[in-house]
């Protein structure tokens, strides 16, 4: 019975998360929902990072880079690609079935001048007679995920020979180069000004006869939760299959695994591809949800949040990492309130991060498997000793008779 406690608790938590937006009715509804959605976003990143680092032992600091690849792929595609039944004559365009695929020319952030991009100019001439179709958001997210997978594949191929500290530095370098490139190419990515994205559901959605507008929080909540559950499902399936075993062998001893016939090249590249595509998918969905992406999401601080969440949850258990991420995100937001002790005002917006860092170090030092993973394994493994003893007795009895 005790063994099933984690499963029951997990089911209760899941039911609570599913029912939460329906039962919560306080005035700060939107704010709380935003925190939860961001929590799910970090949970996907922490879970996939713990697969990459905890299971496969590939210590990567570039996870936010792949996230940004996903977000910027869908952002740029939605920003620059349109379908129109009429040719504009000034844009780059190509026949696409019976319509025209239009790539808008980048005009950058020089909004002080009155230059418009070529499609806007053409639309002014048409004066509403031609209906231009935008890129569907779902397609953008899928392409972003594929782009993240491709980038993960390439990086995985490049880092085959690198281990531990070298790998960490290489992935950090990758992320920094990406950040610099996005910040510098302001004509295309609009740099620090940020790229605007269409909302996740541009026309809004109607669920059970209830209409939710493009900025309503409920549809993105369920979307992000569904993505999180999908990622966790894939990760759980992978971890239980041959893949999980081989990947853990890779972590423990690469050479021994290779000697025992594990195709280390294939599994290393595969684990990079899969986890990076998850990060990219999370980035793409989050980008459409917050509707603006900037290169600041590549700051090392963001990566350190994911790292800390995964470590505090449990580095070698992705479910624990995901729960830890949601829990910490909620905690960090709730701790924002400043308070006064003995006439000194404590500005919790900064101090909460100090406590967070101390919590990270204490967890690392004294709770090596994180704070949540040991709880799960405690219940899972309870009674194993008695069972083993009982089994041995039976075996011994059987052998004796």
């Amino acid at each position: 019975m005790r063994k099933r406690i984690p499963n029951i608790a997990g089911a209760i938590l899941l039911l609570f998360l599913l029912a939460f937006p329906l039962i919560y009715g306080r005035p700060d509804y939107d704010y709380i929902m935003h925190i939860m959605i961001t929590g799910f976003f970090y949970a996907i990143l922490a879970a996939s990072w713990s697969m990459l680092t905890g299971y496969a032992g590939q210590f990567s600091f570039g996870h936010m880079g792949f996230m940004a690849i996903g977000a910027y792929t869908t952002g740029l595609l939605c920003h620059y690609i349109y379908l129109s039944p009429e040719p504009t004559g000034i844009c780059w365009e190509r026949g696409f079935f019976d319509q025209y695929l239009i790539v808008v020319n980048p005009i950058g952030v020089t909004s002080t001048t009155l230059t418009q991009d070529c499609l806007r100019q053409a639309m002014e001439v048409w004066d509403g007679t031609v209906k231009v179709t935008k890129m569907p958001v779902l397609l953008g997210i899928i392409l972003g995920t594929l782009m993240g997978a491709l980038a993960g594949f390439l990086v995985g191929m490049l880092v085959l020979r690198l281990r531990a500290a070298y790998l960490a530095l290489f992935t950090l370098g990758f992320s920094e180069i990406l950040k610099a490139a996005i910040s510098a190419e302001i004509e295309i990515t609009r740099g620090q000004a940020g790229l605007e994205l269409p909302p996740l559901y541009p026309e809004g959605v109607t669920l059970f006869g209830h209409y939710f507008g493009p900025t309503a929080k409920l549809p993105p909540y369920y979307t992000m939760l569904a993505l999180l559950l999908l990622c966790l499902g894939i990760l759980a399936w992978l971890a239980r299959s041959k893949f999980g075993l081989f990947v853990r062998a890779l972590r423990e001893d690469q050479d021994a695994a290779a000697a025992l016939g594990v195709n280390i090249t294939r599994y290393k590249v595969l684990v990079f591809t899969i986890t990076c595509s998850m990060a990219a998918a999370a980035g793409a969905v989050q980008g459409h949800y917050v509707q603006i992406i900037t290169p600041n999401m590549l700051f090392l601080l963001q990566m350190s949040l994911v790292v800390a969440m995964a470590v505090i949850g449990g580095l070698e258990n992705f479910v624990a990492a995901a729960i830890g991420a949601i829990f910490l995100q909620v905690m960090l937001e709730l701790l924002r309130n400043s308070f006064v002790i003995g006439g000194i005002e404590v500005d919790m917006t900064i101090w909460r991060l100090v406590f967070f860092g101390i919590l990270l170090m204490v967890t690392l030092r004294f709770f090596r498997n994180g704070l949540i993973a040991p709880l799960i394994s405690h219940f899972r493994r309870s009674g194993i000793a008695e069972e083993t003893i009982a089994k041995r007795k039976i075996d011994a009895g059987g052998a004796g008779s």
Partner: protein
Amino acid sequence: MEFPALFWGIVGWMIVWAVAGSIITRRRYLSRDLDTSNANFIGAMAGASLGPIGIAAIWAKTPQTSGHLSVGLGLLTVLIVAVTFSFADPENICVTSGSFVASQFVNGLIIGIIYGFMALGLSLIFSILGVVSFAHGEFYMIGGMMVYFITAVWLPGINPLVGVLGACFVAFATGAIFERLMLTPMYHGKIDRPVEYGILATFGLAFTLQYFVQALAGANPVKAKRFVTFPRWSWPEWADPAWIKTRGGSLTLFDQVSISSPRLTAAATCILVLLSLLYLLNRTWTGKALRAVSQDREAAAIAGINPDRMNMLAFALGGMIAALAGALLVQAFSWLPQVGAIPAMRSFVIVVLGGLGSLPGAFVGGIMVGLVEAAGTGCVPDAQKAASYIPAYGMIVLTLTLLLRPTGMFGRRFASSTHGQH
């Protein structure tokens, strides 16, 4: 300013042949059962500088490569890029103005010395603990902050030397305490993967320190006064020497090259401290013990050295070096709690370029990175884009070095498994 297609054509040609040379040479060396650690680099350089001819020559003379050859080919590659650049953009200030080049060179050299000094601390920590300290930038930040607080807030008007010494002391103590509390379980086999643990632990320290300082000092930039004001040397009019002029904050050589006082004092102090550090490492018992531990922990322990104490000393010394660099540069830049990120990245680049764990490599690498950066900021035509790309130059060098020659210029293979090469 748009570059002509010729420039990009030549660069593209070089990249294609470099990739081809790298792959071909590695294959060739693998098939001959030779040491491939240098093959990628020399193949890439031969391909980039001489194209197919270079690759063919390397191919024909397979086992005979030397350090001189790879250095020569590398220099040739750099030369070809520079010449192509000057032909592609003849009006550029780097091509037309000699004094500008000299000034950029001197300033790049000076800032490179400071970078190299800072990276030296990182390299010292890596060579002994096997940990890449992600808190290096935070030690740098603490150094500057301490100098500011001591000389401007707590004891206004005191000699800046007190501030610098105080900063060093605080960083040394922080490093020693952190090492004792957090990193000790690494050495006794209590942790499965010590390298990852070390990275995560220093990462946690960086996070905590940065926000701790921000909570205490606020997020507004602070700036310390310059330590040294040059005396005005006044000669009679006719004897005024042409080669040196001093004004309060800067020193001008030959009317062309201007060096500011903060940078000059920082570089001079760095060289002095570097010399004393070399003396410590090479001439004293403690230094010999440190080097012994970095070569072989167990053998050093048998010889009567306490490796744990050496670890503590190395981490504290490394942190102190970073703090000293910060304490010297706080007079040149304005200071924020986040200021450590960029020098930390630069230190990573430098130690990887020079070879992780190699002390001379860190210094030479620092000077190279300083020069490359000066060239990159001064010569790339689009100034705004160049400024945005500065962090990327170093990171490109870092990723390329890791791909082509992970041991760096002066790298060595470590005997123990803690350094993450086994």
